[in-house]
């Protein structure tokens, strides 16, 4: 036994507003750990999304801006272009990134902006009460797909945005991870660190998709929610590195 596990200094000592078992708390901590490890807390600017993580800046101990729903990567582009020495990342949910902000996402990636995007995929709109997200699974019951998402009735298929983005030449790194076990949480931290490192090395756009539990909307207890990621979400969104330089 040689490792201690201590709260990272990039995470403020503040209780979160998240539901019990929510993935945001875990992911906020992972991001904070990576920023501590890379020693970039004083040269980082984050862009928070609209959604449950809208007040992520209350928990992080570094500079942060809000953005209108879906516009995080446009805001991040503006910050990075005028302050290229800052490490700039967005933290966005599936609705924010893959629905209302799809144009901003695709074009920031296609311009090869030297940004890192942490994409939280929980297959639903959490904050507004569990509506269908672009990443909702086929058959998944949501507030707006009460009979389960059915492509045949025009509700579409789960949008694999990471796979799409990996095709673009401006994108240098895409990985998909999960928060469903300690081992995978450690792997998520590794991938996020790699993504940040690519930005620091000026390689281009990097994105890490994180399959994250939303026990409240999924109507499962936190342990069952973790299991649902493994048994259902991973079938549609298999973890792995989709693109690397």
């Amino acid at each position: 036994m040689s490792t201690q596990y201590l709260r990272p200094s990039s995470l403020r000592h503040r209780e979160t507003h998240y539901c019990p078992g929510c993935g945001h708390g875990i992911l906020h901590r992972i991001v904070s750990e990576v920023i501590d490890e890379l020693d970039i807390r004083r040269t980082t600017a984050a862009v928070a999304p609209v959604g449950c993580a809208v007040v992520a800046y209350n928990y992080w101990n570094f500079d942060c801006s809000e953005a209108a729903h879906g516009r995080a990567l446009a805001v991040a582009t503006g910050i990075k272009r005028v302050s290229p020495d800052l490490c700039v990342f967005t933290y966005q949910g599936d609705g924010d990134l893959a629905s209302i902000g799809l144009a901003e996402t695709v074009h920031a990636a296609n311009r090869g902006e030297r940004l890192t995007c942490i994409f939280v995929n929980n297959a639903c709109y959490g904050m507004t009460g569990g509506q269908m997200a672009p990443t909702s699974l086929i058959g998944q019951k949501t507030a707006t797909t009460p009979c389960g998402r059915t492509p045949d009735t025009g509700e579409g298929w789960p949008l694999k945005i990471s796979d799409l983005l990996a095709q673009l030449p401006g994108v240098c790194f895409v990985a998909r991870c999960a928060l469903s076990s300690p081992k995978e949480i450690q792997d998520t931290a590794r991938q996020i660190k790699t993504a940040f490192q690519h930005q620091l090395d000026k390689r281009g756009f990097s994105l890490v998709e994180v399959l994250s539990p939303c026990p409240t909307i999924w109507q499962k207890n936190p342990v069952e929610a973790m299991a649902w990621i493994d048994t259902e979400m991973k079938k549609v969104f298999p973890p792995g590195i989709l693109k690397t330089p």
Partner: protein
Amino acid sequence: MAKIKINTDQCKGCRLCIHFCPVHHLRISEEMNNKGVLYACTDPHTRCIGCGYCYLVCPESCIEVHLLEPSETKKTHT
């Protein structure tokens, strides 16, 4: 050997740490914390192996895993 520190007042009782602890060192409390939830606490009958799983899965970051000084390790063994 390692020792777990839990900020029990911050714990929301999600029980992920209890589920993932490989040595059943964590259990749910019998009384409520100031939030009114049953919180995670350590079981004195088992020993922490310092794997950090509880820290990793805790959404509130209210668990820390500290290394024990050699003197403390001895005490734990007795």
